[in-house]
């Protein structure tokens, strides 16, 4: 089995990638403006909910229950979906999921598909596999289309092209769609995309989507979106394929009541998504004639097995944690080297892929806790970051200088007499603790002047 998350295994470490991005003023300005806008909208619509904390608690409880009984709910989903005329496939890893998808498409002698809202397929690098098999994928979500046309990478979970501004998108559309004229207003850009996509919606016979939720009780699948392109994707084609991570299951239809309140408010600052598509199997004369669901593991059962960080799988991909994160704000999403960026990416990518990859990500946080505060499903991201750091240390993968420094410090803190000696050394200019800190620190900051007398000396010396 080979588990990969997009191209994260080959990505440079966070610090190196961040170095490059910090030099890109345009991207940083775009990220700052966009995240601030969404963050403020979110704060407004969350603020008007008196029961927001209750909703968060309910959501966390539902997800806890799902993860504890995932096997049961998955089988229940399979049975219900099959009964409604759908076909359920199980994929252990990314390659298997891609193979299944290609098999279905080729089984219908098709050479193109229309796609919407499927980050999971970015995880499996489906588009690369499709193209290798001679199948053309058309991204229909506006932001995904921008990424595809620009041969770019997504930098945000909900708004993948968040690092691009209007002017850049206009230039891209003119260049790649062969337009000689195009206005610069958002409506003009949307109109150009609509024109470009419409013929594909009408022509292409296979649709491909992700899912925000899959209901075990009914076998239904739910996708929420803003543009309506998703609605077209899941209704117009003859054949529909939906790929989702196994953690996307919720027990009953009623549970949607909780999540459909939390998700739009957290994600885009809307009270409700403009389009909420929920469908169950196939219905003769209405929508696709054939419906496939691919349930993807790709490392998720491994995450499930670690009780300390299991709640990573609660995530509903709202990106509230990205929009509030002071680190993401500086670097944007590309620094995280994964389709999953920001705080959730920093915990999810390394766990899915295995801890030998993406080792820099658990350190890409100041542990300020802003992510935990906004997370609608209450994932304690700082605590999980610390847990992953611990796993790195326990695997013997922490840098040697850090290990030596931490061992020395632990030895020192075990006994106040030793601490006294260390403090004397610092005062005398030997500065053992500073020496470790100095290189990174001193680039932008002065060290405080070391006082002649520590507090304990002052106290012991009669406070003179």
């Amino acid at each position, binding site marked *: 089995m080979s588990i990969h998350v997009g191209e994260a295994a080959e990505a440079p470490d966070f610090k190196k990638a961040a170095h490059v991005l910090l030099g890109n003023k345009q991207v940083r300005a775009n990220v700052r403006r966009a995240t601030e806008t969404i963050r403020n909208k979110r704060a407004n619509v969350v603020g008007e909910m008196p029961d927001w904390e209750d909703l968060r608690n309910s959501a966390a409880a539902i997800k806890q229950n799902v993860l504890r009984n995932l096997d049961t709910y998955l089988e229940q989903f399979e049975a219900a979906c099959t009964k409604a005329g759908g076909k359920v496939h199980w994929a252990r890893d990314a390659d298997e999921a891609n193979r299944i998808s290609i098999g279905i498409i080729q089984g219908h002698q098709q050479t193109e598909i229309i796609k919407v809202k499927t980050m999971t397929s970015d995880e499996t690098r489906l588009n690369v596999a499709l193209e290798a098999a001679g199948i053309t994928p058309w991204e229909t979500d506006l932001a995904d289309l921008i990424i595809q046309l620009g041969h770019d990478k997504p930098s945000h979970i909900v708004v993948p092209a968040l690092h691009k501004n209007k002017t850049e998108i206009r230039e891209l559309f003119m260049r790649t769609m062969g337009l000689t004229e195009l206005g610069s207003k958002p409506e003009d850009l949307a109109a150009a995309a609509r024109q470009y996509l419409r013929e594909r919606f009408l022509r292409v016979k296979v649709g491909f989507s992700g899912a925000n939720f899959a209901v075990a009780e009914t076998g239904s699948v739910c996708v929420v979106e803003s543009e309506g392109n998703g609605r077209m994707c899941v209704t117009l084609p003859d054949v529909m394929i939906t790929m989702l991570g196994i953690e996307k299951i919720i027990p009953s239809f009623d549970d949607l009541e909780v999540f459909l309140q939390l998700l739009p408010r957290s994600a885009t600052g809307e009270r409700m998504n403009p389009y909420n598509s929920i469908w169950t199997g196939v219905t003769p004369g209405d929508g696709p004639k054939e419906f496939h669901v691919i349930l993807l593991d790709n490392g998720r059962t491994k995450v499930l097995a670690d009780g300390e960080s299991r709640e990573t799988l609660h995530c509903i991909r709202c990106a509230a944690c990205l929009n509030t994160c002071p680190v993401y704000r500086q670097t944007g999403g590309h620094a995280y080297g994964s389709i999953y960026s920001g705080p959730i990416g920093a915990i999810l990518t390394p766990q899915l892929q295995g801890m030998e990859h993406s080792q820099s990500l658990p350190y890409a946080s100041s542990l300020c806790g802003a992510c935990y505060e906004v997370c609608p499903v209450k994932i304690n991201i700082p605590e999980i970051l610390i847990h992953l750091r611990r796993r790195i240390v326990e695997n013997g993968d922490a840098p040697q200088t850090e290990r030596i420094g931490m061992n020395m410090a632990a030895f020192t803190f075990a006994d106040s007499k030793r601490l006294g000696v260390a403090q004397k050394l610092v005062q005398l200019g030997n500065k053992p603790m500073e020496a470790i800190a100095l290189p990174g620190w001193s*680039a932008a900051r002065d060290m405080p002047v070391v006082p002649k007398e520590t507090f304990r000396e002052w106290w012991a010396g009669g406070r003179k």
Partner: protein
Amino acid sequence: MLISLFIACYNDSLFPETGKAVVTVLERLGHTIEFRQAQTCCGQMHYNTGYYPEAVGIMRHFLDTFKDAEVICVPSASCVAMMRDHYPKMAAGDPVLEAAVAEVLPRVYEFTELLIDKLGVTDVGATYPHTVTLHTPCHSIRALHIGDRPQRLLEAVKGIKLIPLANADQCCGFGGTFAIKNAEVSAAMLNEKMQAIAETGATICTAGDNSCLMHIGGGLSRNNAGVRCVHIAEILASQGTS
């Protein structure tokens, strides 16, 4: 009241004036201060960097040192957050340790919590004729839910001119070893914080945690910004011009 001071290792070594200020304020309010020389550290740096057994060792030492203390005052929000958020979990499974944590934790107070919640004072009789802005460290707001306690204490200081800091709750970029491991991102975060501070026109930036202030102050000093960082205890201790 007999109050035991846990000064925090970095205050002890680098910011003794903060400790002295805590003593001044509490003695002025009529309390007796003790300082247990055996104290070292709360274990936060080790815990946050993933050195778990080492952190547990340091926690044991802390619990041992303070097991019979009546009230423990800590002028460092992040150390208190470390104890409240993580000690119970670190002790879980070891009944002796669990009992020790359960006994000591309720007696631990962050400095501004101690003044307002335990001692019931907001006016500590300070005078500080300066223009001041208040940064609210992440741990103080998100872990301790310190709210407006520091603000209320500062508002009661005579002569002070308080200017609100834009996005005061946005992380300054310190984050312990983060400032070293991801020094450039940390510095970019710091730049935003310094920009916000500059916009206030204040000459003093204060907070209840010298770790943030060491980072912010280090940047301000490098930029010759003309703004100094001062721990809130030092403002509350002041009765004149300094």
